[in-house]
């Protein structure tokens, strides 16, 4: 066989492989959206779940997912921002920095179930927070920190070195240069990173099963006092999220329409991720235009 035929065959095979992969991926997305979207309705998205009967919704779970996401982001963003600033702007290239980087890499490669178990051991049992939104938010924070730190550091890296030199030449301290010059320029790409990591946190379940718990007590959406037990804002109540809900009803659910509810919830999750992705791209581009007047 001469090399030309070989070339043709190999490239044909690569076309086949790529086509097959596209087919799998599209079938996957198609299956989720086609089987799930018909389940979606206002009732499904707002009604509380039912344990034994048909026709329950995922209202409470959906709220819990967003609330947990919000709290986790609230805790992890400042920490990740600080860590990224130190790593990129201050840290010298020595053994200490290398060790810290290794630690962050290890944290990002830990299976999320291990992070969840640690959260269970430390927050739920040791600190007696119980299965609560707060424990879940901390577990999600741990899960999120390394990814967010890396993405913010990458954002800082994209800002040209001349901007730093400009700030320092004007007599600003390094900290002032970072907060007044570098961060404003990096906002669009930091925002993109934050939204993308929000998508990952939104779908996380393994870290939450033993921290935020697997039950979703009924909420009274008229009661916004965070200290009342039925208030949606109470951070000490157990809170099953949408992702945990899918797992739960598939492994031990007894409602007759478990499959319909799971496909509906999967579609909601995937749609949310889609929205996060598009929002990240769109907002990033838009902010970049506005801030840089490009």
């Amino acid at each position, binding site marked *: 066989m001469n090399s*030309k035929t070989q070339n043709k065959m190999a490239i044909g095979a690569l076309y086949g492989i790529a086509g*097959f992969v596209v087919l799998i*991926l599209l079938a996957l997305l198609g299956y989720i959206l086609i089987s799930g979207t018909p389940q979606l309705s206002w009732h499904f998205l707002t009604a509380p779940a039912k344990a034994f009967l048909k026709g329950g919704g995922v209202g409470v779970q959906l709220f819990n997912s967003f609330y947990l996401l919000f709290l986790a982001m609230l805790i992890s963003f400042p920490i990740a921002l600080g*860590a990224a600033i130190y790593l990129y702007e201050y840290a010298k290239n020595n053994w200490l920095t290398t060790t810290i980087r290794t630690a962050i890499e290890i944290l990002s490669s830990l299976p999320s179930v291990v992070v969840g178990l640690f959260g269970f051991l430390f927050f739920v049992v040791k600190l007696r927070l119980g299965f609560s939104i707060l424990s879940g938010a901390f577990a999600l924070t741990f899960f999120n920190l390394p990814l967010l730190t890396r993405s913010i550091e990458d954002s800082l890296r994209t800002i040209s070195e001349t901007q730093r030199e400009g700030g320092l030449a004007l007599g600003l*301290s390094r900290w002032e240069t970072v907060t007044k010059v570098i961060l404003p320029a990096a906002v669009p790409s930091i925002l993109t990173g934050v939204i993308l990591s929000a998508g990952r946190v939104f779908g996380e379940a393994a870290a939450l099963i*033993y921290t935020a718990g697997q039950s979703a007590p009924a909420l009274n959406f008229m009661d916004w006092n965070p200290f009342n037990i039925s208030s949606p804002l109470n951070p000490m109540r157990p809170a099953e999220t949408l992702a945990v809900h899918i797992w739960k009803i598939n492994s031990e659910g007894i409602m007759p329409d478990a499959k319909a509810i799971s*496909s509906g919830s999967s579609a909601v999750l995937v749609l949310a991720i889609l929205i996060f992705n598009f929002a990240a791209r769109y907002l990033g581009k838009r902010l970049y235009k506005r801030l840089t007047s490009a």
Partner: protein
Amino acid sequence: MKSTQQLERQLKRHSKAARLESWGRFISFSALLLIVAVVVGIIGFVASKGIATFATNHVSLWDFLTEKTWNPNIKDAHGNPEVGALPMIVGSFLITILSAIVATPFAIGTAVFMNEISPNRGAKILQPVTELLVGIPSVVYGFIGLSVVVPVTRAVFGGSGFGILSGTCVLFVMILPTVTSMSTDALKAVPRYYREASLALGATQWQTIYKVVLRAATPGLMTAVVFGMARAFGEALAVQMVIGNAALMPSSLVAPASTLTSVLTTGIGNTVMGSLQNNALWSLALVLLLMSLVFNLIIRLIGRKGRMQA
């Protein structure tokens, strides 16, 4: 005299900007330290709980790693608890290696297609789709496995449909986008003039890809595969939903089995803190943790080797 002292103090005092600077430096450094503390905390806590099985309950480490019966509630003929973790360890490795073997050719093939053969279509269709799929939650993969893969396996091979094979299928689809997008990065890092030089020598496109581009990108491609394996090894819920959760040595690919993660997810809520049953589960978590450190180490070694060649 007093005024000179005052003057000295005034001159030696840090300016507002200097104080702000050290303050900001301190704050950002504490944030970093916090992350390190979390890592140390996780490893320390899980290790101390995991070692308890061997230290307090006097289970021998060798038995734990090689015995085939997992039944922490029952004691065997010698009065030792039956905590042989081999079935789970084998299950985890089997499923990880199989899914990596299946996923690698597809992932690398797709990455080559995206980069070398049809960059246009790659950037327009494949790239966004893979990026999106990297973000799909694992429970969704598990649910699809449960409602599509398991029934198909049941229809084709008989049995319950739960088992290593279904788990492999789910993990294959799950790590495919991750490995593909990392392989794409590895191929992108190969300088353009490598390809130009090869084509100028009269090599065909395939010869260029096979003999030049893939060789140059090998460390990056290996990192991508190991990364995918690490993800497969640590995946809990998607696997737990389709593997069948029977803590037995896997006798065939379609018989129910279990992995470290699946036993952990189902078991930890049903045991009492501090009991042997609970400690044994923490030992499984420790194995999981150590394996993720090993994967990390492998990625590092590959990276170092790749740098030396370049």
